[in-house]
């Protein structure tokens, strides 16, 4: 029996295929369309799934959509009626949005795939979440809790699942909390209040929470009140998400917590305002944790089961998950690799197979790698065509070499096998870096992922050594398997694992069992994993690539250093030369993304032309020369960039005046530096017009020797920056 599961039309569209009770493949639409959080009907994902399995739509026995669209429409319409007349602005757009497409899902699926309408089935949203959590977990019996923003009506459900000895499977959701009372919406409201994107920036709130103190818990508790039966209600006077599409918090909310943060405005923790935002994040995080812990304690007492399966977007909150594991009484907590809406595609298909069709239960492989695979030969061909240096290694040599490179300070892009299903990089599409120095984290955040400095990175390591570095509670290794739990780093390791140790001494562990890159740790050092999609692109909004097609486009971009994959390795430039080379490119190629750097303004002192030869391409001289008030950093334009406009084999030197450094550390993402480890930064007036896209060498060896660390933005135009080149 072949069942296709689909999630679409809200965020993170995806498709998953289950054949004879076992998942065959699953992929999010964003991995193929290259649009982050792509909510469109996942045509590309469906096509890929069917192609991968070698079947046509006619072969499908059922197509399962992850929610009941008419029930959802009823909720939207009823919410508009209840908010009358305040909902008059949002009503037209909500109706057009729903009636225009979303309620006709059966017809859309039928017309896209050409399957009879009778083959199209619908689970409820939280049934799909529950199925994703329970049916992919290796447990015969478990309590189930799902929580997210909102599905149809339900925002949080509890129940239990059971695999019986006769092969039958039962998932029973017993009760629910209904919209607009929602833990997910509460958290999302604070996400919007703190200036982050809803449905995307929630993990930023979680990361920021560690920098604050929960001083506003009492105020947050005014928003969410517990009911006598153990549930909760939101005080809707503080919210507008149920009546407005533009803003999720009300004026009373602002009276309570102060003015919201403007997006892109830096969070400066040295100021009272910055601390207020961090405290807000810490407070809502605390309330979320306490509410979830209370509910799971009650659920444990009610069911008496040792295992808990968590589903829904709220289950991505690793800090709360760790507290649930520690305090709820459950021995094991299972969180699938894709607990959010994307995972519902897989859950819906599995639910239909086990429950609707009543097929016997089968073990589901316990890994997240259901997406498109890397074809090493394709990569080799692309790299060869682009004239890049390619080396091939066997597994042992590859791990040895990678460990050496990491130890030397390189940042390595790692692709291996099939793409992960879910939002996290779990070892098949990851950026690896040594976890020793906090500067590594800063460099990754600032120059590769282009994101806020408070965002942490996750360590990836084998399960059997995880307890050596982290204080894992019982069941912690399981929870940390898919980066779903945040655990304290052992005190003796915090200094040595500075890059992955968050400000509160915790780390979001990814204890992998079958991931090759996790084997690097025993070789030399623990490694550092981070989602790759921001690393490979200057456009940070793009999702990470799934297969060799998008990878080919990544290879042509000058933003990555040592690109590694299974068998092919491509050296673009030595790390210290990277940004310097970009600088060179900026001066020579007006069509590049950093074209707006007016070189004439930057050239205000002597420049040095250095002899170059073709063989030198891709390397830089270690160290810099100090000449008077300047640091002179020599560099080369490398081969890949030459085709983009830089002169072949050209050598140049960038001189940077020392006195433009200040004690005002900021990162490219526009946020105040939060750790005092970085010595010299550029004042905000020197920022580029587009600070996310450009930086001078952040860790050029010579620059660091001279007391420099981050030169981000020092070449911006229209400022008093005195750096120059050519």
């Amino acid at each position, binding site marked *: 029996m072949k069942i296709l599961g689909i999630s679409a039309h809200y965020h993170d569209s995806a498709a998953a295929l289950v054949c004879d009770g076992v998942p065959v493949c699953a992929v999010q639409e964003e991995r193929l369309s290259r649009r982050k959080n792509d909510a469109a009907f996942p045509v590309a994902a469906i096509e890929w799934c069917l192609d991968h399995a070698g079947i046509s739509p006619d072969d499908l026995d059922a197509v399962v959509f992850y929610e009941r669209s008419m029930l959802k429409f009823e909720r939207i319409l009823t919410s508009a009626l209840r908010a*009358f007349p305040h909902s008059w602005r949002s009503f037209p757009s909500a109706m*057009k949005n729903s009636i225009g497409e979303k309620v006709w899902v059966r017809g859309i699926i039928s017309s896209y795939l050409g399957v009879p309408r009778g083959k199209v089935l619908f689970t409820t949203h939280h049934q799909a979440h529950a199925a994703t959590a329970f049916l992919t977990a290796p447990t015969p019996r478990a309590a189930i809790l799902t929580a997210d923003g909102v599905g149809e009506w339900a925002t949080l459900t509890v129940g239990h699942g059971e695999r019986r000895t006769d092969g039958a499977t039962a998932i029973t959701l017993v009760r629910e909390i209904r919209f607009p009372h929602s833990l997910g919406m509460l958290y999302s409201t604070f996400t919007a209040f703190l200036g982050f994107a809803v449905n995307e920036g929630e993990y930023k709130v979680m990361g920021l929470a560690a920098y604050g103190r929960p001083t506003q818990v009492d105020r947050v508790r005014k928003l969410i009140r517990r*009911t006598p039966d153990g*549930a909760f209600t939101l005080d809707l006077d503080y919210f507008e998400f149920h009546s407005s599409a533009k803003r999720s918090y009300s004026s009373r909310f602002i009276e309570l917590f102060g003015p919201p943060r403007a997006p892109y405005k830096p969070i400066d923790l040295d100021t009272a305002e910055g601390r207020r935002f961090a405290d807000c994040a810490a407070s809502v995080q605390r309330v979320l944790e306490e509410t979830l812990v209370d509910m799971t304690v009650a659920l444990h007492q009610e069911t008496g089961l040792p295992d808990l399966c968590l589903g829904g977007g709220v289950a991505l909150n690793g800090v709360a998950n760790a507290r649930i594991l520690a305090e709820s009484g459950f021995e094991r907590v299972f969180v699938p690799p894709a607990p959010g809406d994307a995972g519902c595609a897989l859950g819906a298909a599995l*639910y239909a197979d086990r429950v609707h069709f009543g097929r016997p239960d089968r073990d589901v492989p316990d890994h997240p790698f259901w997406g498109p695979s890397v074809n090493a030969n394709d990569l080799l061909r692309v790299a060869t065509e682009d004239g890049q240096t390619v080396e091939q290694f066997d597994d042992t040599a590859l791990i040895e070499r990678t460990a050496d490179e990491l130890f030397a300070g390189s940042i390595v892009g790692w692709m291996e096998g099939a793409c992960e299903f879910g939002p996290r990089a779990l070892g098949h599409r990851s950026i690896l870096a040594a976890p020793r120095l906090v500067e590594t984290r800063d460099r990754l955040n600032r120059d590769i992922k282009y994101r806020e400095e408070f965002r942490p990175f996750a360590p990836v390591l084998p399960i059997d050594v995880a307890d050596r570095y982290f204080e894992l509670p019982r069941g912690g290794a399981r929870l940390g398997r898919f980066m779903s739990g945040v655990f304290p780093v052992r005190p003796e390791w915090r200094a040595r694992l500075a890059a992955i140790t968050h400000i509160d001494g915790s780390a979001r562990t990814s204890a992998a069992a079958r991931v090759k890159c996790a084997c690097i740790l025993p070789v030399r050092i623990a490694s550092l994993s981070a989602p790759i999609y921001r690393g490979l692109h200057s456009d940070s909004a793009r999702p990470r690539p799934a297969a060799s097609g998008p990878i080919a486009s990544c290879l042509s971009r000058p933003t990555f250093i040592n690109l590694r994959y299974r068998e092919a390795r491509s050296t673009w430039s030595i790390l210290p030369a990277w940004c310097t080379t970009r600088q060179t490119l900026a001066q020579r190629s007006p069509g590049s993304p950093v074209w707006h750097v*007016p070189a004439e303004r930057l050239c205000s002192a002597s420049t040095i032309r250095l002899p170059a030869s073709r063989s030198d391409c891709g390397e830089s001289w270690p160290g810099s020369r100090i000449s008077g008030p300047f640091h002179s950093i020599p560099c080369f334009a490398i081969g890949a960039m030459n085709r983009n406009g830089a002169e072949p084999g050209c050598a140049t030197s960038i001189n940077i005046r020392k006195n433009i450094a200040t004690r005002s550390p900021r990162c490219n993402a526009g946020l105040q530096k939060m750790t005092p480890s970085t010595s010299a930064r550029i004042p905000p007036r020197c920022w580029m017009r587009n600070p996310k896209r450009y930086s001078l060498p952040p860790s050029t060896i010579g620059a660091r020797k001279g007391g420099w660390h981050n030169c981000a933005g020092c070449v911006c135009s229209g400022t008093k920056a005195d750096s120059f080149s050519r």
Partner: protein
Amino acid sequence: MSERAAAGRFAIYHDIVADDPPTQAVFEEILRDEVFHMTYTHTQLARISPDSYRRRLWSARVRRVWKQYLRVATAIANLFGTIMLTLQYFILIPPFAGLAKRALRRERPGWVGIRPERRDSLTRQY
């Protein structure tokens, strides 16, 4: 056609930054680049398809006009839809809004049991 459209935009950017000669110079260079692309593409089209390149160019122009019309028509339809729905909101909705609010007042806060018939059938959208 795309290069030509881009060239038009860069010409505007060029004029906007008249008070910033270095940036203006960069735009000039980009503009020259776009003009080069445009000319190059036109030459190649004429070389590859000497008999029909004019017809193809016109066809491309018509397609662009059609797409622009569709965008405008969609925007107008969207506006009319918004007006109609807003009118309906104030004319038709009020009685139902009263009923919905009355039902809301009767709702008990807290947990709500899930009816078995709702969770069992996968064939219904409700």
